[in-house]
């Protein structure tokens, strides 16, 4: 795994240790200290306080403040409460959670345990992406170790606290990463999102209050309790605490997963961390937060990579997957590839997403293969805009937003494909950006 001197290694600090996934390595390097502290020295309120102070925001994509989310869980509940870890990691360009699970599964388990302490839950699940089969072995071994050492199970560390944790795999649907569809799937049903409100914090798994977070979010919790919320917050920028695992891919010389402080400048990320554009080509565009986020161009290169700044630049930090594209990339083809992904992954529940992604992918396909008419550019915009904000779940927005940004920022490339002209980029190097 490539490393960079710009990295600030908090979540990844044990990654290079031998046997980093074993509980012995973990225990030898601060492992389960935060949990023990939470269990024995802290109250749920003081833990929440610390979390809020840390400015930790959800790493799954939406960036919701984690402390606040856990605070929504009612204290009293007639139904059991649950902790669910979203390890469905399916956003194109994103492959950070798998490293956290592969290299340091106990850190994740510890984060989940702390959530259990905070909300008074005794049962957790890690919902693992279907294609991540190999991770199951690693996770299940780690769970076994934790049970054997008394960090999971009954009467943990003699405190009377019980917690059971199990893995569960998806069956390969992107939509099952959406929190409510994930809960449906976890209950053994079809992966269709639920009507909200009520939100999972109030009515979640099997109708019980549920804390649901991303792998990276849970994994950040032990360090916060160990070192303090204040310490974590100051690693980043205001309202954007800590570090983030950025997944740098596309046309850079050194693609990889890098743990960088929140607010790290985009240009520096591409040029210094990623070692600049592949083959010395010119930079053209960057998708800053996974395939669902609008594309940015050179004028946004000075954006600090935190939730608020990227939003101000007109896109989203999302899952932290930074996809870089150089001058030979055909943006129509990128838009097409993305739309094919969303058409394939739309769960089909609601009309605008189901029909919109299908129609758009067909039209973009025709566009790219030279069969487009002038009015098709407007049609693409029209369809995407009519999906936006009107679908049942955010997948529809995730499909629509990027397309709108592609047409807006690269209209001339769309025009270059009109009236039977062959793709002007086809002769050049194939974009290695997204593949299915």
């Amino acid at each position: 795994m490539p490393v960079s001197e710009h990295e600030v290694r908090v979540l990844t600090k044990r990654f290079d240790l031998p046997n980093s996934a074993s509980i012995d390595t973990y225990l030898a390097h601060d492992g389960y200290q935060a949990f023990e502290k939470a269990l024995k020295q802290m109250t749920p309120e003081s833990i929440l306080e610390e979390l809020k102070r840390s400015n930790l925001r959800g790493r799954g994509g939406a960036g919701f403040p984690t402390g606040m989310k856990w605070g929504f869980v009612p204290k009293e509940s007639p139904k059991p409460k649950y902790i669910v870890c979203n390890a469905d990691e399916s956003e194109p360009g994103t492959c950070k959670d798998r490293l956290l699970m592969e290299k340091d599964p106990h850190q994740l388990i510890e984060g989940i345990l702390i959530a259990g302490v905070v909300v008074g839950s005794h049962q957790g699940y890690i919902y693992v992406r279907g294609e991540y089969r190999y991770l199951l072995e690693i996770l299940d071994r780690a769970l076994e170790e934790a049970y054997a050492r008394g960090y999971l199970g009954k009467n943990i560390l003699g405190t009377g606290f019980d917690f059971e944790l199990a893995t569960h795999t998806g069956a390969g649907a992107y939509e099952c990463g959406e929190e409510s569809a994930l809960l449906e799937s976890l209950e053994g049903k079809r992966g269709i999102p639920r009507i909200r409100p009520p939100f999972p914090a109030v009515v979640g798994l099997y109708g019980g209050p549920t804390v649901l977070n991303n792998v990276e979010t849970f994994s950040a919790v032990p360090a916060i309790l160990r070192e303090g919320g204040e310490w974590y917050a100051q690693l980043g920028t205001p309202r954007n605490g800590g570090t983030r695992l950025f997944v740098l891919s596309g046309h850079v010389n050194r693609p990889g997963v890098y743990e960088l402080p929140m607010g790290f400048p985009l240009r520096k990320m591409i040029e210094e961390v990623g070692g600049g554009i592949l083959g010395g080509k010119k930079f053209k565009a960057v998708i800053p937060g996974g395939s669902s986020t609008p594309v940015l161009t050179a004028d946004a290169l000075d954006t600090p990579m935190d939730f608020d700044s990227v939003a101000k630049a007109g896109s989203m930090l999302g899952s932290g997957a930074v996809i870089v594209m150089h001058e030979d990339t055909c943006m129509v083809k990128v838009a097409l590839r993305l739309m094919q992904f969303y058409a394939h992954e739309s769960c089909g529940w609601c009309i605008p997403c189901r029909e919109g992604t299908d129609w758009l992918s067909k039209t973009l396909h025709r566009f790219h293969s030279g069969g487009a008419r002038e009015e098709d550019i407007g049609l693409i915009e029209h369809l995407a805009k009519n999906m936006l904000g009107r679908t049942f779940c955010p997948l529809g927005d995730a499909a629509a937003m990027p397309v709108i940004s592609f047409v807006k920022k690269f209209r001339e490339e769309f025009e270059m494909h009109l009236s039977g002209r062959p793709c002007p980029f086809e002769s050049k190097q194939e974009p290695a950006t997204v593949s299915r």
Partner: protein
Amino acid sequence: MMGETVKIRVDDRELEVQRGTLLIEACRAAGIEVPSFCYYPGLSLQAACRMCLVEIEKAPKLQTACTVPVTEGMIVRSNTEQVTQARRSMLEFLLGNHPLDCPVCDKGGECELQDMVFRYGASESRYGEAKRHVEEQQWSPVVYFDAPRCILCYRCVRVCDEGMGVGALSVVNRGVHTEIAPNHGDHLECEECGMCIDICPVGALTSGAYRYKARPWEMQYTSTICTHCGDGCKTTLSVRNNKILRGNNRDRSGINGEFLCIKGRYAYDFVEHPSRLRQPLIRRGRELVETTWEEAIGTVAAKWSEILARRNKAANNTLAETSEKRSEGFGVIGSNHTTNEENYLLQKFARTVLQTNHVDHHRTADYAALIHALANESAEQPSQAQRPPLARSKDIVGASAILLVGNNPTEQHPLIAWNIREACRLNGARLYIIHSRRIPLLRQSHRFLPLGLGHEADALRHLCGEPEATQALLGETPSGDNVTADLLNDFRNRLQEEKDVIVVFGDEITGPDVSLLIRMGSRLSGQTRYIALGDYSNSRGASDMGLLPHLLPGYRPVGDAAARAFFEDRWKSPIPATVGLSVDDMVAATLQGGMDALYVVGANPLKGRNPEDFCGKTFLVVQDLFLQETAQAADVVLPAASAYEKSGTVTNTCGELQRLRKAVGVLGTRTDLQIFASLAAAMGATLHPSQPEEALEEIRQMVPEYNIPLANVLAGGAEAVLNPNGFKPLAAPAETSGRVYSAQDTLFTSGTLGRFSNILNLVPERNIRKEPGPA
């Protein structure tokens, strides 16, 4: 129960609505249009079609009116450019892959998608891509599915799962490949009710009976009452060129709303079955041969007159009586399917013209015992009754607790079962079941008291606190349940906590057990109400109209001189004073050669017996639709019109009076009413009235319980009759001569009619479920 209200503003109109109401309902109640495909009152929310998007102040984007409950001060806009545009684009999306084969689609003309596009859609289509296509599938004899037309509103899935409690449909695949799928991969095994077809807003689910037969605008619509079971659902028959092409409940009116089972929806086809009798038959030697109406009527009238004359002579000549073999004279067996007017006239004909009380029908529920027990009950405790003690079918939906004793409503009373499920699902009703089998409604039940066959009365005694009965119930039941004292006590204690229970019972409870049931019910708090379940469309009416050997219309005992005098005065004829023979007794007497004549109207009392054994044993006249066992033994067979071919009224098992309207006519047949009149006339007797309207008028004068406001009934609604509340205790106790038993029809059988319905014979489930119980 009017809860707290809130004020909201929609398009500059102030509305005051109950807190918690869904915005879409609030708008619609005020006449503000909000289009929807997936929203369907009474079914779970989906938020899938996005047709109902509206602007709500302070919300960052358009909101689905079908999922948002109103809150105080909510400001809503349903008519802005943004909203209009959202609707238009949703339809544009839908039409993209839609086949637009409207010219050949069954739904054309009554399609919600067509209507919606007409109202809210764009006139131009920008879709220039290839449309997704998959082949049409046949899922069962009655259900076809054309996936490309499906707009995925999930109504079918929900009505089957939530409404029917069957859950035969589901969703498979994803994205644009998402499809509705049947429970057995490529076909359905279900109740074949067609509810999914009926609820489908487009032509995706179509009916095997109706598809490609007609356009909706070339048919006439006749709303009438289904003739197959005692629940009496309203069904609209669509007719073209005197042929019934479709059954449904188009306007969702009537006691059943949108509900119909397979029989109400499809089993009208017996009407045109090739075996239908279309000409009178007369016995010549061993053969039944076709004849004219004149000859048939003349023969019957002559023979009957001759018998009458002989009997009168015998009655006047006491000497002769000793020498001649004793004969029972005339026997009359009536129908569970004929109208009230016909039943009334048939027993009047029997009692006055034929001078006999040997009048009966196949009794499938002990209404007589129920009415008597309730009359006695209300006489004892007059203060108790605030409401009629007989519940109407819709009352079930609003009940807080329901006790079901016996029967299997899912198979035998589909509407009652639907109402019970609605009560449990929508209103949280608690269902208590006492049963010897594990019936499907157990899924909805709150408490179950399993028992051995025939132990229902013990269960009632247990509920009344009789310890020996409790003992008799303990142990393992044939259904494999272990009955413990705890279970029994828990059942009783829970039930006793309930108030205003509706008790629904089958033929497991008859005779004295009915009084026991009422005694048990009167120990519960509040007012207990009852529904006795009888099999057919006018089983209740046959009983009410006095097609009984011991009771005159309105359950007045024939043995009661005052009751007799009342009828004799009006009918201007004496009535025999002794209780007559039951169906079984009449059949037995016939075999012994003890009946001079037997007149069977719309019934088949010889079902399952060899007609040969009865030939020549009596002068047998049968009036029916088909040549069944009884007709095969007849001397004269008169082809009758079915319920779909005549007007009149019927009374369902809950005592709801409804109107039959003639949908078609079958050449060669006559209505039972017409036949009675011709027979009487040919005998030189008078039998009034001869028109159904006049007959109903006379019924209303003679049976006070039927003297109810008719406006609603005439308009196609239902009105409850025979409210024993205020009944004076009847002179004699209910006397049960003759058996009361259900024919145990299933969802896919319906006595004689069911034997001649092609649709019912086609569905494979008919053979899986021979018993009206779970397979």
